């Protein structure tokens, strides 16, 4: 094969520019790798999730109710669109796990006879299924078993429906309903203190006095379109049976949490690679502009010899594409490798029984195509100049002309020549200085973004777990009790302070949308539980009216002073109306806060409470835990310390990896941008710098002229990057906000300091490399080259 002369030139130019080409290819490779990794992980999780959901027949609609006869299931199955119905008996229970001092909470769920689940099938990981006729046999959820060291053969005790029962574990299982194990009232999964137990239907019926009846129903529908009408119909049919309001997957706690994770990953898959592609385009533009600038005469010569504008333009375009192709080829396998690691990590994190991992050609194609497009668009600006250059103009070299700029008037007289050179070089090519600054600012912004998530989570924790919640233990009761009784809790062993409160499930309907909320009734004198916004402002609920989460207000367009209709989802279901008197910008949950007495009146149960917050004497906490484990009226026990630890652990788990990746790649961007800018400056000004050396400037002095210029740009990039990071974080925080989480827009000084340090280190590393090149400057050779 004959290599054409122009292609030889391409190869030689590439070899000459290899370090810069590698820097660009590295950034492109990072972008491609990150895109492929996150997109593949996202696709794998979606596929695995849907395989799991379909294979194990995950339900579409759920409803809890007081009690309904079995025959009602026939009515539900006859609803249009319903393909399967399973009636169940379920109950919360307080658990006494051997060797664990704190009480844990369990959910007992019935298994139909013969273990033939029509919905929400179980996957038995270890041990065996329960066998008919064997009393007290249970399957336990895997996460709980692992965290508490429970194996088949172990026994623990539970208090449910005022009775104490033994639970003999025969197997460990997974269910699509409990991918994330959300404790009642909790905001994050608590694998150690909340577990699901499946036991034979007849056993649970006996325990709960529910023979021939159900208190929980799950349904599947043939198409999503049926979900809303089925929910309405189910609510209508179950109303007389104490139905607490049916809900779809969107409100199912485990599914909601899983979706949050997957959607966050999707956001990550889109936003971060986009930044890398922007940097690739930018670097490509800078390097090609410079190359074409120095090859003006060659461009003119080629055109004079009859090469068309198009051919000469494509020659340079080919160079851009060859560079990013190298990046793509290097990035793809890294992306697949990284994607597999991430997918396996997430699959085990979610405990999926199946993992579908495949590199979809579409993902690779999109990644490659978008990267090429970015490179081409970056090259475009530089190429336009090639295309429009007439041969004769191109052949006469562009003189290195410096014309005075307005800046000259502002340079103070005491400024030395070196500082003047720096100042004028920056203003000589303002567009390029601006682009370089923008590139550096992007790296800084990315670093700020990566760390800001930590600040934001810390703020969430500080607001929720240190300011709003100050109790040690929160005890949820199985049903509302008379307010006079709360003093019983204050009298329990080790209790220093007790404060009653009320919490009820509710649902808001507005603009055709429904939103499940938690309604809290707090006493005016409450100090253990308060309503606090992200700026630590404490808002006390007024004696009348309600304070709602700002997120709800924004989502449903609710304004201060307006009435809000809330459907009460316990006891007798009905819709009540309260006036909204305030909003609270809180980071977690979707809540409505009211005065305890006012809520009682609203619920037609004045002077009642359903939960109590306790402050403990640490020395006597074991005594209290032992009492609570056997207290018949207790539905669940929440420990603030545990909830905080779980929240922290979960956010650390999901953030640690992302943070490392972001820091690594931002450092690559900072390095790439600074290195390229400095290399170009060296190439363009070798002659000037050599002259200074001849005049007696030391190596250090000429380095300071060149690197000083880069330093000026870097310093101006910092505030830009800080601002950009804030803006980027605002976008990401908004994209990631859900009804459960809102990331407060908080960036602490330590994050800016971190970005400053990492960026400076990366910039210094590239500056050192360039400094080495300056030290090897061959004076005679450089001066000769001009002649």
């Amino acid at each position, binding site marked *: 094969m004959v290599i054409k002369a122009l292609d030889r030139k391409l190869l030689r130019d590439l070899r000459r520019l290899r370090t810069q080409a590698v820097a660009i290819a590295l950034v492109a490779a990072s972008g491609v790798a990150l895109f492929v990794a996150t997109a593949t992980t996202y696709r794998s999780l979606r596929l695995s999730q849907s395989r799991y959901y379909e294979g194990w027949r995950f339900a579409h609609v759920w409803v809890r109710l007081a009690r309904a006869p079995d025959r009602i299931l026939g009515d539900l199955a006859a609803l249009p669109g319903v393909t399967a119905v399973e009636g169940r008996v379920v109950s919360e229970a307080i658990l006494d796990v051997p060797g664990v001092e704190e009480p844990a909470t369990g959910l007992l769920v019935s298994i139909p006879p013969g273990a033939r689940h029509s919905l929400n099938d179980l996957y038995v990981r270890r041990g065996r299924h329960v066998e008919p006729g064997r009393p007290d046999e249970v399957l336990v959820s895997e996460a709980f078993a692992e965290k508490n060291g429970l194996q088949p053969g172990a026994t623990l005790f539970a208090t449910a429906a005022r009775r104490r029962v033994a639970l003999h574990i025969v197997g460990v299982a997974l269910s699509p309903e409990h991918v994330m194990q959300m404790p009642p009232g909790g905001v994050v999964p608590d694998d150690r203190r909340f577990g699901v137990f499946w036991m034979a239907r007849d056993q649970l019926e006996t325990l709960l006095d529910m023979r021939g009846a159900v208190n929980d129903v799950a349904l599947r529908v043939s198409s999503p379109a049926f979900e809303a009408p089925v929910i309405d119909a189910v609510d209508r049919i179950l109303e007389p049976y104490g139905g607490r309001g049916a809900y779809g997957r969107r409100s199912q706690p485990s599914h909601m949490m899983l979706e949050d994770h997957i959607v966050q990953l999707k956001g990550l898959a889109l936003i971060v690679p986009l930044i890398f592609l922007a940097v690739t385009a930018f670097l490509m533009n800078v390097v090609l502009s410079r190359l074409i600038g120095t090859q003006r005469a060659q461009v003119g010569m080629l055109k004079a010899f009859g090469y068309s504008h198009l051919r000469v333009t494509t020659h340079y375009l080919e160079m851009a594409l060859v560079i990013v192709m190298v990046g793509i080829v290097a990035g793809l396998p890294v992306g697949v490798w990284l994607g597999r690691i991430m997918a396996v990590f997430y699959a085990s994190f979610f405990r999926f029984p199946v993992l579908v991992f495949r590199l979809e050609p579409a993902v690779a194609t999109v990644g490659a195509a978008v990267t090429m497009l970015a490179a081409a668009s970056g090259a475009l600006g530089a190429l336009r100049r090639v295309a429009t250059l007439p041969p004769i103009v191109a052949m006469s070299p562009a003189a290195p002309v410096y014309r005075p700029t307005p800046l000259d008037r502002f340079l103070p007289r005491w400024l030395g*020549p070196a500082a003047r*050179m720096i100042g*004028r070089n920056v203003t*000589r090519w303002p567009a390029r200085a601006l682009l370089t600054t923008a590139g550096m600012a992007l790296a800084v912004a990315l670093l700020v973004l990566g760390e800001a998530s930590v600040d934001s989570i810390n703020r969430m924790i500080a607001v929720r777990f240190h300011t709003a919640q100050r109790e040690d233990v929160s005890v949820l009761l199985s049903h509302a009790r008379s307010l006079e009784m709360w003093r019983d809790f204050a009298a329990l062993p080790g209790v220093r302070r007790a404060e009653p409160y009320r919490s009820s499930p509710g649902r808001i309907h507005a603009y055709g949308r429904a939103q499940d909320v938690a309604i809290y009734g707090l006493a005016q004198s409450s100090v253990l539980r308060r309503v606090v916004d992200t700026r630590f402002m404490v808002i006390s609920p007024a004696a009348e009216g309600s304070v709602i989460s700002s997120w709800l207000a924004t989502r449903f367009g609710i304004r201060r002073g307006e009435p809000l209709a809330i459907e009460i989802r316990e006891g007798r279901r009905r819709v009540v109306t309260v006036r909204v008197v305030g909003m609270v910008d809180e980071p977690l949950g979707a809540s409505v806060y009211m005065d305890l007495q006012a809520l009682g009146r609203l619920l037609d149960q004045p002077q009642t409470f359903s939960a109590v917050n306790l402050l403990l004497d640490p020395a006597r906490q074991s005594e209290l835990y032992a009492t609570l484990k056997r207290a018949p009226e207790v539905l669940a026990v929440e420990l603030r310390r545990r909830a905080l630890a779980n929240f922290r652990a979960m956010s650390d788990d999901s953030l640690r990896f992302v943070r490392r990746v972001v820091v690594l790649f931002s450092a690559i961007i900072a390095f790439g941008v600074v290195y390229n800018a400095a290399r170009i400056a060296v190439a363009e000004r070798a002659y*000037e710098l050599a002259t200074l050396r001849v005049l*007696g400037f*030391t*190596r250090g002095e000429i380095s300071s002229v060149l690197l000083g210029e880069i330093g000026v740009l870097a310093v101006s990039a910092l505030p830009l990057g800080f601002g950009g990071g804030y803006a980027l974080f605002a976008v990401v925080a908004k994209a990631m906000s859900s009804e459960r989480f809102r990331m407060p827009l908080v960036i602490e000084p330590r994050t800016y300091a971190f970005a400053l340090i990492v960026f400076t280190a990366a910039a210094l590393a590239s500056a050192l490399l360039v400094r080495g090149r300056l030290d090897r400057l061959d004076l005679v050779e450089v*001066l000769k080259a001009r*002649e």
Partner: protein
Amino acid sequence: MGEGVFVVSGVTKVYQMGEIQVHALRGVDLSLSAGELVVLLGPSGSGKSTLLNIIGGLDVPTSGRVVYRASDLTAADDQTLTRYRRESVGFVFQFYNLVPTLTARENVALVTDLSSRPFTPEEALDLVGMGHRLDHFPSQLSGGEQQRVAIARAIAKRPDVLLCDEPTGALDVTAGTVVLGAIARVNRELGTTTALITHNAVIADMADRVLQLADGRVVGDRQNARRALPEELRW
């Protein structure tokens, strides 16, 4: 003439260009005396620039010795050579080598900032007849004017030695004459030892001494009876 400033003995310079060895200097011996104006004359490739670069501390010889006022330049490290250039040598090049982003005054200040007892930039520019264009950038000056700024920059630190590599090579006769006048004036008034490279034999008449180079060797060394004035030169 005064005491010896440079003693060059047995200097060779070989450039390795891939497989080929290029002998730029093949054993040069010469000495320069204080205050002397010496013209190094020779065709392209005769080794004049290489010799000047070695004397100026920009390059080191392959063998031989260059002694500047009792210190051996051939044994000096980079730091010493930088200090030597900074304190003792002024350079003037064919293409002026002005920093395009600095004005005439600031280009000269580049050197005066480094120096212990310099002229002011204004004084140095006055000396070469450029006192009226202090705040012009190189792009706003003609070639001859740029070269005079380069000379002002070279002499502003009151160097011991002024080395000029084809200072009129890119100029027409009129501009060239003015530039040579400036060099002759500096040599006369400041007593700066001056070496000037040219391939133009006419210019040799303005020197005290003319060294003829050919093929990397000194092939002629004559003393001029009288230094011609630059304005008398015609080429």
